[in-house]
């Protein structure tokens, strides 16, 4: 296995913490698991086992509280939206308009289509009752009697799992009329998408849920005022809603103690790419990126003994970071796996936590090809509503294809930069930004690789550019 890389890693880290000795480096909460604590239990997908592991205690507790108190707990917990933007969930809940006589809705955004992100799928597939429990509590807090799960169309087998979990919860009195004698009625409906990335944007999701074409709406009005069928609506990510369960069980303040700073609680990271152990990991946001990649508990190092070249830390749409900026910030501080640290340095030298799709690239990967792949994805998924995104994504893809196949010109790189600059911030929804950022970051950090492709049109077809100067700083030391 990855002995070479592991050995080099140990040498370089002599002054740093040892992987095997985690307790020395962090507080007692290190390694705490809230969402995936029972993931290993056999049969956790089914109600009986889930209940035996202490499931649905949050519903029992929450229904004795007032809705306002639950919102207050979520506010206190500092829980931030896990879908990508990281907006405080409690704040979002408190914005919901409460006009007299108009129903409100909670919508669970399970349209997880970001390349590299598959944490929600894991949660829904293996512990569906955690989501259902979170949904019941959140519906009660928001006063939603009809709650929807909008699930990605490609997750063809998961709606059945969710429907079964809903049926089980209903049979045991946790859904339906007068839940646990509290007088609160709630139904959960599962709605499948038809295979569009854009429907993960909350207003496009609402349009699609209403049965229309999934075009993002122009905000304002925000969904909290006019959402599904013009009713006040809250749209939350699967993981956010699942995290409500431990918040109610522990209490908001207790939950806020986990993690660091404004990154409270635990976060699911779906790690993939050239690592030894791809998968979904629950982290408490106090560990460093370096540890996450190299420790055996998580990714287990770079696969095949290769070296780290770059990484996208939060799903395809966040900026890619070269190894030297990934492990340490521009100021030379250790970069940690949390919202603040990953975005340290802005987009010039930082990235974003995003949705937690952690994509690792080893030295054999070609950044130009990778950027082209992403550009192709965004061109295909643009809804075509507003001009910069509709036209710009296609243009970027064509130029990147040229560079990738050795037909590029030096001026194309500047042109790409100019195009992405004119898309970013000028579109209706964040898809324009999401399409522009990866291209911008690739040019910003890997410009020499683009130039090499232009200067060596034939050689770039045969071999990859390799590491160059942006290689893992740690490797250089070793």
């Amino acid at each position, binding site marked *: 296995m990855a002995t070479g890389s592991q050995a080099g890693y140990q040498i370089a880290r002599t002054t740093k913490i040892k992987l095997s000795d985690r307790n020395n480096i962090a507080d007692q909460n290190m390694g705490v698991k809230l969402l995936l604590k029972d993931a290993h239990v056999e049969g956790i997908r089914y109600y009986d086992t889930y209940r035996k592991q202490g499931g649905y205690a949050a519903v029992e507790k929450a229904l004795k509280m007032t809705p306002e108190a639950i919102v207050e707990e979520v506010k206190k917990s500092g829980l931030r939206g896990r879908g990508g933007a990281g907006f405080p969930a409690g704040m979002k809940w408190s914005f919901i308009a409460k006009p007299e006589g108009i129903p409100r809705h909670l919508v669970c955004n399970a349209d997880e289509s970001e390349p590299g992100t598959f944490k929600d799928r894991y949660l829904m597939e293996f512990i569906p009752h955690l989501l259902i429990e979170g949904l019941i509590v959140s519906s009660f807090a928001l006063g939603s009697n009809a709650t929807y799960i909008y699930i990605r169309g490609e997750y063809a087998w998961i709606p059945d799992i969710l429907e079964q979990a809903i049926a089980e919860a209903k049979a045991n009195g946790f859904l339906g009329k007068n839940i646990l004698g509290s007088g609160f009625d709630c139904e959960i409906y599962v709605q499948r998408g038809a295979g569009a990335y854009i429907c993960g944007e909350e207003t496009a999701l609402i349009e699609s849920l209403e049965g229309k074409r999934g075009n993002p709406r122009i905000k304002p009005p925000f969904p909290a005022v006019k959402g599904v069928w013009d009713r006040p609506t809250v749209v939350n990510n699967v993981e956010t809603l699942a995290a409500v369960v431990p918040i109610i069980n522990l209490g908001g303040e207790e939950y806020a103690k986990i993690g660091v700073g404004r990154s409270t609680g635990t976060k699911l990271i779906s790690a993939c790419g050239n690592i030894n152990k791809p998968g979904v990991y629950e982290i408490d946001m106090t560990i460093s990126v370096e540890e996450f990649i190299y420790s055996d508990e998580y990714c287990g190092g770079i696969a095949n003994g290769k070296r780290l070249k770059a990484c996208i830390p939060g799903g395809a749409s966040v900026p890619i970071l070269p190894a030297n900026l990934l492990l340490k910030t521009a100021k030379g501080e250790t970069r940690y796996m949390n919202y603040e640290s990953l975005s340290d340095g802005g987009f010039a030298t930082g990235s974003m936590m995003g949705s937690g799709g952690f994509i690792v690239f080893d030295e054999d990967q070609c950044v130009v090809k990778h950027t082209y792949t992403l550009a192709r994805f965004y061109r*295909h998924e643009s809804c*075509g509503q507003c001009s910069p995104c509709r036209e710009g994504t296609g243009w970027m893809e064509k130029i990147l294809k040229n560079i990738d196949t050795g037909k590029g010109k030096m001026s194309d790189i500047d042109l790409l930069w100019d195009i992405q600059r004119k*898309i970013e911030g000028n579109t209706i929804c964040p898809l324009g930004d999401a399409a522009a950022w990866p291209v911008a970051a690739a040019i910003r950090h890997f410009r020499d690789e683009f130039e090499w492709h232009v200067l060596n049109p034939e050689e770039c077809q045969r071999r990859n550019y390799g590491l160059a100067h942006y290689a893992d700083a740690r490797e250089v030391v070793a």
Partner: protein
Amino acid sequence: MAEEKKLFKVTIDNITVEVEPGTSILNAARQIGGDVTPPAMCYYSKLKGSGGKCRTCLVEVAAGSTADPRPMPKLVASCRTNVMDGMIVKNITSEKVQDARAGVVEFLLINHPLDCPICDQAGECHLQDLSYEHGKEGTRFEFAKRTFKKHDLGPYIQLHMTRCILCYRCVFVAEQLTNKRVHGVLDRGDHAEIATYIEKALDNDFIGNVIDVCPVGALTDKTFRFKNRVWFTKPVNASCKCDKCSGKVHLWMRGDEVLRVTARKDQWGEVEEWICNTCRFERKDIKDWTIEGPVNVNRHSVISQGHYVGLKMPDETFSKVMNGRQPKLLMDIHSVSEVNKPNVNLAAIPGPAHSTDFDTKTGK
């Protein structure tokens, strides 16, 4: 006395105007008029829900309101952002806006066929105006432009999907004017297109209005197709008694011939009153109409006389470059031409004149 309505004060490019609450920035700018009005390709004041898509009307909000004077972080679509009291907006005074707008125009044009010479919309095309104002002279797009499979929308409406900028106006027209919308946007992204899913003619008494709302030449009148150029035709106000619509139209005439009928448009190129298909496509005879007078051609048209008002002729520069000397007459065309020979009295020649009458060699 009626309760006094509180008006919002909004400053656009250092010009302050008072508007009613709920007015969009674009409409406030239209009240000022002139250059500070952002261009709008997709917004249509008569169509509910339109706007926000083309992004040409982006403006910078330097101060949100008196109560909350923070600037907005991004450029906003002025057609869909309502004014607040004390809002300060920058349009032509903001470099950021000009840059973004130039970008949007470039994006709109990269896949546009630029077939203006054969396009019926040329001369009254909003995209032409926009690209004259904000576009670049060259293109940086070096790829094949996208094309579409042709769709037939029936005997009256011609669809050129390659010219479309997906403003969605025609979709809104079909939704809000007719009882059943049969066309819409299919597909997504850069291959999104306007079409009827199953090949079908657009058939409704008011569907012809999609031609008038289309800002480009994507939807044109089949009965006017290739008949004439807009600037050769003369628009007149006319009306008729129609049992379906107001009957108030513009006739586009050449001589006594009615080439085209459109609805009357205001200064922003927006239809004043919708007209029915019978008026638009069937009444092509001058006898059908009562002519009221010539049209004041709007600012969107090359036919506008306004373009020639205060026309400045170039100064005579000969004497200036020749240090005050007048140009030397190189050749007096009258003295060389035999036909115009002034000393031959044409009236004195019996019958038609022949070359022999002017023959200098024979000395007649």
